[in-house]
């Protein structure tokens, strides 16, 4: 019973990390209808900026979010304005390839600047855990889960209670109707890309608490982010949170009760099933 509870708790904690790294991907797809392959680049930039700030100034990763969030917003909005915007009426595959190119440029730049070595950072709470009865929960993972839930609440409130959120939802529903109603669509696109990128970079910052930092970091998690977004409903932030947690639990139960080697297979089985079911619904 203790083992089952431990595995469930681990699944929930891992799942909230999956959700956090997928929010930005879902938001950008919802508003721009763009599959952002540069998402992996922003995740990777997040871990590198955080690691560098820690290695150079001893800055705590939690504090570094104050830098990675605005930096991510500025970089994301710039990428949208200078690159994505120019291709907005092109076939989707053009934008897809463009953003894939952005990812490759960032990855190779990181190789050139920092080399390919695995790096990691250590804080006073990196290896701390919290005992809850028979359960032992990792403090860094609890922190990331708290941020994930906080991010979900903040995003949901922003979308529902603010003018910007209303504009984002309007553009997501019908771009032309929103433009006719006076919504500055171009600016909304830049804001959506900026928020999505800021979320990705902050997720990277927090994930540096337990994952090693390499230029391949984004590749490791991009596919998992896609699984969560597809499973959660592409544009539904609440659905993404539930999907992330569900995927985390499914992976951990599979690893514990069937075989650890099948852990990552679960994600892709779920992705395939979700895509097939969506296709069937559409037909």
């Amino acid at each position, binding site marked *: 019973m203790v083992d089952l509870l431990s595995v469930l708790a681990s699944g929930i904690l891992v799942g909230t990390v999956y959700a956090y790294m997928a929010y930005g991907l879902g938001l950008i797809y919802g508003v721009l209808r763009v599959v952002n392959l540069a998402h992996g680049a922003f995740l990777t930039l997040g871990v590198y900026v955080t690691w560098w700030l820690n290695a150079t100034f001893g800055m705590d990763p939690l504090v570094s979010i104050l830098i990675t969030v605005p930096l991510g917003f500025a970089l994301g909005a710039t990428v949208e304005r200078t690159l994505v915007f120019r291709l907005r009426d092109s076939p989707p595959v053009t934008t897809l390839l463009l953003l894939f190119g952005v990812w490759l440029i960032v990855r190779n730049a990181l190789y*050139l600047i920092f*080399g*390919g070595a695995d790096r990691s950072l250590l804080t006073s709470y990196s290896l701390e855990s919290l005992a809850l009865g028979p359960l032992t929960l*990792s403090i860094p993972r609890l922190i990331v889960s708290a941020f994930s839930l906080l991010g979900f609440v903040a995003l949901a409130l922003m979308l529902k209670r603010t003018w910007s959120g209303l504009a984002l939802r309007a553009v997501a529903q019908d771009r032309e109707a929103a433009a006719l109603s006076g919504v500055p669509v171009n600016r909304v696109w830049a804001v959506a890309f900026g928020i999505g990128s800021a979320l990705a970079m902050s997720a990277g910052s927090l994930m540096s608490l337990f994952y*090693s930092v390499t230029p391949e970091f984004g590749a490791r998690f991009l596919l*998992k982010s896609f699984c969560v977004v597809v499973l959660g409903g592409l544009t539904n932030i609440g659905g993404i949170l539930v999907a992330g947690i569900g995927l985390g639990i499914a*992976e*951990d*139960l599979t690893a514990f009760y069937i075989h650890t080697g099948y852990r990552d297979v679960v994600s892709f089985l779920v992705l395939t099933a979700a895509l097939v079911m969506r296709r069937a619904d559409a037909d």
Partner: protein
Amino acid sequence: MTPDSRTRRFPVLGLLLGAGLLQACSGGGDDTIRIGAALPLSGKHANVGGFFRDGYQLAVEEVNAVGGVAINGVRRPIELRVYDDKSDASISPSLLERLIAVDGAVALLSGYSTPLVQAQVIVPMRRGVPFMNAGGASKSIFREGNQWVFGALSPVESLASTTLEWLMWEQDQERLPRPLRVAMVWQNTDHGREYRTGVHDVIRGREDRFELVLDESFEHLSSDHTSLIVKVRSVEADLFLSDAHEPDFLLQHRAYVEQGLGHIAVSYGARGPERSVREGLGEAVSHLVSAQWWTRALPYERSRHFVERYEAQFGGPVTEYYPAVAYEAARALITAIGNAGSTAPEAIRDALKDLELDDSLLPGGRLYFPEESRLQIENRCVIVQNQPEGGVRIVFPPDAAEGPAYLGS
């Protein structure tokens, strides 16, 4: 010959002529003997590639300092030519082709990592050029009937077998119980599978000493290891063995510490003494036991000589095995070129087959390439244990041990 086929052949002839001219221009006609390597100097293995370049260079500089390698009484300098394969297995073989065809390399030294070396060995085998491998331990590199690829790195299985030899030695000293309950996990790669084979080969028929209570693989670059560690906890083993590359090791040991596990001994194969590991996990890696292909504290004259030379030239304490094994591989190749009395590939190959270095810096102090293991050395590794506050101590074999191992309860 049709006009079409003629036009097709002209570019080929042009390329061959060009290659010949380039070779002549690059000094192929002088006394210099050229050897070469394609190393990962950028990309994901860049840090390790640099260690290999330094180790190779040191061996070449040593021989050149006395005028070069003696062939039939005449000293000829060695030139090491190195290209960057950018850690890309699709580029690496073509760089070796270039080293042979354009630069006139008479023998080759390997790059680093099993996948890259696996891609490289096709070239020397097809071209019939001696290839000295110091960067890939997997047995899959050394194929049936291999004549050209020589291995200066013992197989991955020896990491596992030496670890278990050490445990049996501790049992014989009555410092460990019999049988030991062993939980083993391994990454699902050639490296991990060979580690597992090494463990099984030793414990087979030794039920009085070992009881394997968990034997499970995990995927490389897994996103979480907590459920696996909970599984390890549930089997209540005495000993935890894992074979993992660095990113998985960091995540796995983090989960191990977070879940509050403890065993008599914990080993992650060759992982443990690296500086990057201390940076990521701090004191949590104290008392980890690891099997190493080389460590700076080995009490051999050649090893001390290497440490002094390396640290004088490149600075800082040498904490990794890579430059030492690279140095030894290059030294073996250069010695064989001298013994061959010729730069003909067949002569160098035969000299490598006959080579025996009795002053090796590798564990055991001896380097040769047995035919029965397809020309890959099969030396025992050395077992070290991380010490609190940094540093490592040799705990096995007994003739090199610096003190007893700390064993948990």
